[in-house]
């Protein structure tokens, strides 16, 4: 009994190993066929394996998708940054191109004006709606004086008023207080361009018998010495001659778009001391 207790366990293990070896050796010749055990186990596991595989694949896909999403998200952020940078470059390029174009036009005007000129940038506008003035970044330290003429690439803008050391204000020709001696380019009819409502001007003191037609170009007459002769002011958009009265009513649309002015030229002559 003691002997069995002593070697029984080893004998059992040895028998088991032997049986396993026999089992293996018996199955070696039929290694391509499923035996009863194999078939039974496979049959039992078949219904579980399929959903388990699907579930596993689902988790794998989810995980891969998540990892991919993280990558895609990172890539998305990087691409967005790149797009922003490229957009900023495009905007800067367009801005430079437009600025270049504006300055080229301004340079043409500078060459046309037979007097020394100084360029200035518009830095502000009148704070009320009914006065028409601009603030520019040049003042008395740049040699500006009240009354000097201000022009843009297209034509007359107005006159310098209220000069400070480093800024000045420009009274636009569309302001009610503005008055510029002018002539109709075609017929040489004279008048004074004054500002009126709606960003328009009127040609005043033009007698009824003067030849003025819609579409005529109005230019500065040079009288008064502020504006050089022949600078474009605007185009006649309406002519009205009443039955009575000495003068005709002439409405002018300025050639310069005052709402979008960014750079102007100051004609450095004349002005009040």
């Amino acid at each position, binding site marked *: 009994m003691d002997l069995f207790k002593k070697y029984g366990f080893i004998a059992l293990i040895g028998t088991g190993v032997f049986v396993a070896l026999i089992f293996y050796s018996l199955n070696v010749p039929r290694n391509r066929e499923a035996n009863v055990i194999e078939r039974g186990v496979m049959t039992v596991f078949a219904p579980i394996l399929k959903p388990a595989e699907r579930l596993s694949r689902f988790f794998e896909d989810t995980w891969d998708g998540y990892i991919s999403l993280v990558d895609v998200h990172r890539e998305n952020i990087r691409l967005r940054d790149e797009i922003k940078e490229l957009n900023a470059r495009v905007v800067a390029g367009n801005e430079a191109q437009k600025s270049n174009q504006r300055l080229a036009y301004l340079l043409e005007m500078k060459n046309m004006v037979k007097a020394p000129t100084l360029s200035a940038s518009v830095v502000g506008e009148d704070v009320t709606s009914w006065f028409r003035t601009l603030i520019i970044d040049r003042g008395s330290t740049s040699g500006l004086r009240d009354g000097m003429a201000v022009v843009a690439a297209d034509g007359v803008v107005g006159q310098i008023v209220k000069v400070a050391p480093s800024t000045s204000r420009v009274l636009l020709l569309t302001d009610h207080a503005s008055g510029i001696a002018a002539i109709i380019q075609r017929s040489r009819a004279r008048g004074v361009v004054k500002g009126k*409502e709606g960003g328009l001007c009127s040609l005043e003191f033009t007698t009824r018998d003067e030849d003025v037609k819609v579409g005529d170009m109005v230019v500065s007459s040079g009288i008064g010495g502020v504006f050089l002769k022949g600078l474009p002011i605007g185009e006649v958009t309406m002519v009205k001659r009443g039955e009575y009265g000495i003068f005709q009513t002439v409405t002018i649309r300025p050639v310069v778009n005052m709402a979008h002015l960014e750079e102007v030229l100051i004609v450095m002559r004349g002005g009040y001391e």
Partner: protein
Amino acid sequence: MLGGVVVVAVVFQAAVLPIHVATPFKPDLLLIIMVYLALRSSFELGTPLAWFLGLLKDVFSGLYLGLNAFSFLLVFLVIKSVADRLYAESGFLFVVTVVAATLVSVTGNLLLLLMFTQTPGIAYSMVAGFIPHLLVNSFAASLVALLPIFSRDQDVA
């Protein structure tokens, strides 16, 4: 702090807003500040400040220095004379006062311009632009009334 607010208002009104809003829709921020002062500040402090705010507006507007200074002073004195009888902390009252102040200020300016200058045509521009100006001012005033500083129960002085 008031100085900073005034500087910001002037810069905003002269250089920032004109780029983004059409000319008739410019709010009068200095007038709104003046109305705020009239409702909240003391008479001694507010009176010269109202005149100064108008003067500041004149520096950045038109040709006539002293025009808005006068009308601002006038409007301030009128509001101040009744402010003690009003519930000055009310946002609605503030907006109504700004509307009234805009009306009085524009009318005062128009009369002064017609009396002292040779610009009769400006009356049309002022009348035509008055309604948008009034609406924008009341809108800006309503925004100011929403600011936390407005609901603080303390005087400026």
